């Protein structure tokens, strides 16, 4: 799952990115609204996290601009101002949910997963497809028989992403974006390697290779 965090406070951004990364997300970071607006393909993100207290073009304007461009990606806003005024404004500008700072990473993670469930039509808190079930909050996954899966961080990210896109084809490029941040050196081959490793753990048939297009996680 790939996130874009728009936060001007470096300290806070670093900590959030760290916490979100540990929870299985790839986090890209923009320091201000102008940079975020110029970001290519914002729809490639699973969600956008915007601090409403951004300087210059504020967070509200950023959210409004994105919605004007018909971006339907879930947007979570961070509000520091007490009271409902900012939250209502954020929601009406186009945000889908808000989190009040100070917020623990766990709370942000939980809200994000709730947003994903909304968009992917998942009902319960656990993600499920094929023989695999996954609890994003607990960072645990297991097979149909109840057997727990022992996954590395990358593998967990990969599985999470697949489950949200169960039944749909995802390209190698997309997988790369959702596994590693842009700042890292990335290699297409590593995607193949990690898919192979995941297959070994959950069963080869769970993921189908679609030649030339990518992979599909079977429901």
């Amino acid at each position, binding site marked *: 799952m790939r996130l874009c965090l728009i936060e001007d406070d470096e300290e806070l951004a670093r900590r959030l990115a760290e916490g979100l990364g540990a929870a299985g997300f790839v986090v890209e970071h923009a320091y201000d609204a102008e940079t975020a607006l110029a970001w290519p393909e914002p729809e490639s993100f699973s969600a956008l996290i915007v601090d409403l207290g951004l300087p210059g073009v504020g967070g509200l304007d950023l959210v409004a601009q994105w919605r004007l461009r018909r971006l339907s990606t879930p947007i979570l806003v961070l509000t520091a101002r007490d009271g409902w005024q900012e939250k209502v404004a954020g929601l009406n500008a186009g945000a889908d949910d808000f989190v009040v700072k100070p917020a623990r990473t766990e709370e942000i993670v939980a809200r994000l997963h709730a947003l994903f469930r*909304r968009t992917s039509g998942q009902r319960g808190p656990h993600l499920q497809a094929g023989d695999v079930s996954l609890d994003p909050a607990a960072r645990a996954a297991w097979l149909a028989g109840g057997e727990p899966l022992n996954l590395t961080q990358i593998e967990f990210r990969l599985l999470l992403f697949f489950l949200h896109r169960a039944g749909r084809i995802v390209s190698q490029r997309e997988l790369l974006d959702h596994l590693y941040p842009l700042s890292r050196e990335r290699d297409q081959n590593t995607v193949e390697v990690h898919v192979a490793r995941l297959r070994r753990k959950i069963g080869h048939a769970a993921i189908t290779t679609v030649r030339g297009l990518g992979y599909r996680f079977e429901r």
Partner: protein
Amino acid sequence: MRPPYDSLRFRLIAVAVVGAAVSLVLAGLVIAGIFRERLVDQFRQDLQVHLTELSSIAQVDGDGHPMLRQPLPDPRFQAFGSNYWQIEREGHPTVRSPSLAERSLSGAFATGPEPRNGESDGPRGRVLEYGRTLSLPDGGPPLRLSLGSELSVLAGLLSSSNQMVTRALLVLGLVLVGGGAAQIFYGLRPLDRLGQAIAEMRGGGQAPNPETFPSEIRPLIHDLGSLLHANAEIVQRARVEAGNLAHGLRTPLAIVMDEADRLARTGRQESSDSLLEQCARMQKQIDYHMARSRAAGALRTPGLTTSVKSAIEPILSAMQRLHGSRGVVFQPDRDSDLALACDPQDFAEIASALLDNAGKWARSTVRISWSPSGENALIAIDDDGPGLPPTLRERAFAIGERLDETVAGSGLGLAIARDLARLYGGSVGLSDAVGGAGLRATITLPMLDAR
């Protein structure tokens, strides 16, 4: 019981009455004095004229007895009259006026050819007596002419003249005081209006228009308007300050909380839990006191008004966005509008907190309606959720009480909403939803006085 001199009107009228009384008394004395002089003058003149007349008609007969050539026609010299004359001649019988009858004047002033006068005892009381002597060609003793007039007559004239003056001045005094009082009442009416305008402002109206007041009061009205403005600015500044403080504290608090999480990941669970607990307490305190300090209601800034319909609209659209994905629909009562006597931000806070609560718990519908009730407006929010047993309702307002930890929230929403409403003299209450299951939250707030 306040002393009467507390009142401007009383003071002004008292001054008017005392002033009128003093000046009228002085005037009365002066006028009475003038009248007295004139009356006395006239009294004397009258006697002088009669003396002259008597002198011209006094003569002696063949025996040398004094006599009048012709009678004095003035009826006062007749029997029982108040004026007297007598002519004496040594060695001859005295001739006198019929009014004297058997008595006589003193004759003390008929001592020389020049007329002399003074008070003396007359037949019935004190008289003013004039007298002179008149020499005769026959060489005998001179005639001694005396004239007198009852001083009681003069006294009577004086007294009636005084009475007349007193009465006239009394009437004048009443007219003056009455006119003065009317003037004062009319003149002070703008102050009454000022009092009314201030009361109106307290009830939520605007500052009065300075042009409708007299020039002396206009600066005061201007100042009042400026004061209102300054107050509103104070509230605004307080809001901004409070927001800045929140912003300033929150980030460090977030960092501490993340550090605590990191501690947990490295195995220091107890330290982490302890830190997080304290952080949660700090956060609650910040939230609570920030919310309170922001309330404009604390200053009762007058002139603030909220249209329920327009204030609710953006909140409903936000709530629909927030809770709509679960299938919850927010249905407002769109027909009427009510004007509240409270700050729009405060109302938005109260309504948002309750609508969010309803949205979290509702199964499918949240209904919002509002209606006037006496001087207040009642805004009702009904959800079709599981409701809340009456025994737990008061606890829902306690700070920090989260009756259900599974639903996100800070546990402060209801408490802050009720506190805010109370600052306006209103309230927030929970009851059974109309039409079956669920909870109704009712906001009571004062309406704008329609004048």
